[in-house]
């Protein structure tokens, strides 16, 4: 028993105290639980729903299920609630996978018994495909809704369609015959606000009126979005991808993928995009799709009861999310594989593929943009590229990498400021201010006034003879009667030069605003603003190269390809390459990004330029800091995320990392058959660890197994309710055979069913490299360290994350909030440094009620632990 501790934190308030000291809160939850019948809320379950009240209803529930007092019956029955997790805890992948295999075996063995069982097993086998189908359907439909509504609301800022209020600008002028070649978006049905309010379509008065209305709408959309987020679902803010990455790696954030989060995120995403803030809807769509996946997985017991299986569905759902966000099904699957997923077996790959397919199909049949495409900025190029163009492409890659490194640094610094100073206390005000600044600066510049997706579309589109925008204002010679497709390089006209100026201003504006926008408390994605920045830079470079080639076609690099009158430079292609490079610099994705972009363009011939640019941008970005924006945010928030991409290069041993450290009190352990219920309850109350190794006896210290705190709590509470004769002095027995007891002693409590008989162990001389690998590959939650079969200590995932953090001292340490919490419970050792006698010095927490209330804040904070 004299060794030490493991897992802390977590569990404080909503744990065991109700047994010894029913604080007011628990009392009422339990009391109400009797009325409420919590059967429903239990399958309401883990990722979603019930934050603080976790254990209690399962316990109450336990009391009402079956009041059999027969000891042996009880052992066969699984105790409800055992094997579930608390909020902000890490799951044990190995245990979950074992549970699933056992379940599968049980269903398989019953299969032959009856037709009903057969149907059940078939349903079980198909449920994986069913749940991804439903997820795909829902995320496609929601993406359609978001697209249509966001387009409409964006256009609401400038005017309204009087003939049919629900049409956006483009749809309003759909059938109009009065559009002209020069002013394609003008039609009598569409009224700007100035026309409606002061009756003028032209002139400074109408400009000012439109300006005011633009700011008004932007501010009101932003205000609505942030207040809805604040009142109904705070988890709906942000892009969601860092949290989803963490959840997929095996972390529980209750309510993060719930119904309210889904609804509020969908609704406010539209408002946020429409408010003209420098953000996109792509990242949040991944979150929306994951919410759909989580909600649908409740319909299927195979997924609702198993956290590891649920994460397979979430992987598929995130693929569906990207599939609808970019209209790139394959890119979505690769995104799930490369960026978000942690555990990605082949079966999940196929399911992700299918989910992406279904989602893309649904979105295509909704046809939100009226262009028979899944995204607004779909483009098709037919012109080839030439070898010398690789040089500007690589330059764009360098720009992308620099932008990525700058953005990550600046944004993280800003977010840390928000996190740690008072300034973070005013989320609504912050959003309003950012929206106001964005709107005021954005309106005068036509390129920033546009919806960002439309801006990207315009930049991607090549200048054919059909284009009339100022970006395509080249000096034409009218009499050249050539075929349309092959327009030679031409000298730029005045329009192009003024457009370049405006684009430069737009670039600076976007760069600054995006840094301050990402992380405000509305749903905000990063993909679209990054792509816009890259596209602007790319287009500028493209036009520059084009003009260079036109005026200096006798240079030897141009000589071969760019004769006079030949069409050799496509500025639109540069915009696309730039967009890919910037996105790559920020997210550090490679394969999936290239695939997403070439699915956007429908041309395979541009893969090499894209690859060159993306790879360069990754190299340049990595030179300034190895992590992408999502990892940086994970680190900023201190989530327990073990990145599989990082290498561990240090030479420490397991003994250096394990807890207890040298000066720490010894590990809290349970013995297999000579502790009483009271002893265990005390141990749970006094410590805050989430699990306890079980040893043979204090003398031998040999390992028997591992028992989790939550399981122990639930099992003891349910035994006290259901079994007669379980009192404080009952022996708790983890062993196979009950030890012989004196005749008058109360009957023992058998807890072998909750004991993990096969905990992972390493010896104290195992190199940390191997331990880290084991944790990553198997998804362990904890691992015991032994020496000659005796337990020395324990390593948890949190210890490893902490250790990696320490080793990375050269990288600026970010405060990991739940790593350095103080223990709340009185230590299990006396002031003289010796262990307190556990049997005599029983500290019941009966007098703790006031302290409970005052420390609510603290313990809630603490419960956000591994």
């Amino acid at each position, binding site marked *: 028993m004299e060794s030490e501790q493991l897992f802390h934190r977590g569990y404080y308030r909503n744990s065991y105290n109700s047994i010894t000291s029913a604080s007011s809160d628990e009392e009422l939850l339990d009391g109400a639980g009797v009325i409420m019948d919590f059967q429903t809320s239990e399958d309401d379950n883990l990722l979603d729903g019930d934050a603080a009240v976790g254990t209690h209803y399962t316990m109450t529930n336990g009391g009402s299920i079956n009041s059999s007092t027969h000891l042996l019956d009880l052992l066969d029955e699984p105790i409800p609630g055992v094997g579930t997790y608390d909020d902000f805890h890490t799951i044990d992948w190995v245990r979950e996978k074992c549970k699933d295999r056992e379940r599968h075996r049980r269903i398989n063995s019953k299969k032959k018994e009856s037709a009903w069982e057969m149907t059940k097993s078939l349903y079980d086998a198909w449920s994986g495909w069913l749940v991804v189908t439903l997820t795909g359907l829902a995320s496609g439909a929601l993406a359609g809704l978001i697209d249509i509504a966001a387009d409409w609301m964006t256009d609401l800022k400038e005017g309204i369609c009087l003939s049919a209020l*629900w049409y956006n600008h483009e749809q309003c002028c759909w059938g109009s015959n009065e559009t002209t070649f020069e002013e394609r978006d003008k039609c009598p049905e569409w009224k700007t606000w100035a026309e409606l309010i002061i009756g003028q379509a032209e002139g400074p008065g109408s400009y000012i009126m439109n300006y005011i209305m633009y700011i008004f709408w932007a501010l009101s959309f932003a205000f609505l979005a942030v207040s809805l987020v604040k009142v109904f679902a705070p988890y709906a803010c942000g892009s969601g991808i860092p949290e989803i990455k963490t959840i997929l790696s095996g972390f529980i954030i209750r309510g993060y993928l719930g119904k309210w989060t889904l609804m509020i995120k969908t609704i406010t995403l539209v408002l946020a995009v429409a408010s003209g803030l420098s953000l996109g809807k792509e990242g949040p769509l991944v979150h929306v799709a994951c919410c759909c996946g989580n909600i649908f997985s409740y319909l299927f017991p195979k997924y609702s009861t198993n956290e590891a299986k649920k994460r397979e569905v979430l992987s598929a759902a995130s693929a569906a999310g990207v599939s609808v966000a970019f209209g790139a099904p394959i890119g979505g699957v690769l995104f799930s594989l490369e960026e978000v997923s942690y555990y990605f077996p082949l079966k999940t790959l196929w399911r992700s593929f299918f989910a992406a397919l279904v989602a893309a199909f649904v979105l295509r049949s909704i046809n939100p943009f009226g262009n028979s495409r899944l995204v607004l900025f779909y483009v098709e190029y037919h012109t080839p590229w030439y070898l010398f163009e690789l040089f500007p492409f690589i330059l764009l890659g360098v720009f992308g990498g620099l932008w990525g490194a700058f953005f990550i640094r600046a944004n993280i610094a800003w977010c840390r400021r928000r996190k740690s100073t008072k300034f973070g206390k005013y989320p609504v005000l912050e959003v309003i201010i950012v929206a106001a600044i964005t709107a005021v600066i954005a309106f005068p510049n036509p390129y920033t006034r546009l919806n960002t997706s439309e801006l990207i579309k315009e930049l991607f589109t090549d200048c054919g003879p059909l284009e009339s925008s100022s970006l395509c204002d080249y000096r034409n010679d009218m009499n050249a009667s050539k*075929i349309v497709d092959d327009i030679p390089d031409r000298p730029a006209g005045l329009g192009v030069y003024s457009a370049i100026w405006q684009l430069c201003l737009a670039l600076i504006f976007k760069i600054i605003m995006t840094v301050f926008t990402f992380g405000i408390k509305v749903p905000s994605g990063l993909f679209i603003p990054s792509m816009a920045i890259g596209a602007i830079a790319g287009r500028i470079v493209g036009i520059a190269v084009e003009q260079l080639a036109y005026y200096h076609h006798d240079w030897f690099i141009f000589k071969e390809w760019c004769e006079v009158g030949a069409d050799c430079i496509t500025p639109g292609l540069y915009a696309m390459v730039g967009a890919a490079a910037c996105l790559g610099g920020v997210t550090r994705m490679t394969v999936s990004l290239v695939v997403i972009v070439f699915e956007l363009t429908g041309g395979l011939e541009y893969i090499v330029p894209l690859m060159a640019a993306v790879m360069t941008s990754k190299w340049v970005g990595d030179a300034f800091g190895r992590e992408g924006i999502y990892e940086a945010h994970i680190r900023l928030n201190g989530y327990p995320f073990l990145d599989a991409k990082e290498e561990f290069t240090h030479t420490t041993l397991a003994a250096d990392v394990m807890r207890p450290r040298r000066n720490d009190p010894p590990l809290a352990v349970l013995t297999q058959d000579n502790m009483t219920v009271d002893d265990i309850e005390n141990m749970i109350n006094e410590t805050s660890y989430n699990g306890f190794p079980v040893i043979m006896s204090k003398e031998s210290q040999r390992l028997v197994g591992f028992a989790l705190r939550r399981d122990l709590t639930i099992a003891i509470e349910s035994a006290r309710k259901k079994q007669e004769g379980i009192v404080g002095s009952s022996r708790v027995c983890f062993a196979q055979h009950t030890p012989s007891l004196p005749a008058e002693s109360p009957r023992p409590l058998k807890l072998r069913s909750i004991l993990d008989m096969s905990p992972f162990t390493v010896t104290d001389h195992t190199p940390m490299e191997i331990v880290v690998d084991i944790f990553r590959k198997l998804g362990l939650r904890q691992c015991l360290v032994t020496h000659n079969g005796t337990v020395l200590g324990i390593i948890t995932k949190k210890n490893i994350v902490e250790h990696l953090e320490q080793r990375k001292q050269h990288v600026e340490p970010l405060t990991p909030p739940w790593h350095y919490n103080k223990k709340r419970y009185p230590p299990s050792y006396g002031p003289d440094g010796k262990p307190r006698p556990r049997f005599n010095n029983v500290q019941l927490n009966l007098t703790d009620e006031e302290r409970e209330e005052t420390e609510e804040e603290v313990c809630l904070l603490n419960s956000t632990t591994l």
Partner: protein
Amino acid sequence: MAALWGGLFRLGSMLSLSCLALSVLLLVQLSDAAKNFEDVRCKCICPPYKDNSGHIYNKNISQKDCDCLHVVDPMPVLGPDVEAYCLRCECKYEERSSVTIKVTIIIYLSILGLLLLYMVYLTLVEPILKRRLFGHSQLIQSDDDVGDHQPFANAHDVLARSRSRANVLNKVEYAQQRWKLQVQEQRKSVFDRHVVLS
């Protein structure tokens, strides 16, 4: 009573959300069946040619007829030039579903409207009602939670009261209060303590 409405609304909103996916899907089918005449167009963009300025032509026409010869009706050029002119025009056949757009916008606005009403109710109306109903003593008590003027601040109180009565109404109220507690919890961790999502 007020809480009942809130609860009912909550249930309703959830139902509507789950129906949303299905309804949008159904809509697609519906709108396909009753394709509006105005929902297809063939749009030809013709660039400037000789002394003709550029022009956009727009016509409701079936997909197979969507070409320059059918759409450009008063042909601006004469016989021999028609071919050259038409070669430069780009014709695109497009279709949309106005029913889908209309219904989507209506669904979206109604959900948004309901949410806003509920939000206004929770933040402004409910605290006033509570004060009026429970009088002054309650007022002093609720002042104890210092500075917590956020909506739902009284969730604990109501939870405590609700266990004494047991009927359907209370079930709804209880569920609502439990949800409020969760949101309060989330709000604390996101906005006050900044442990997630900062």
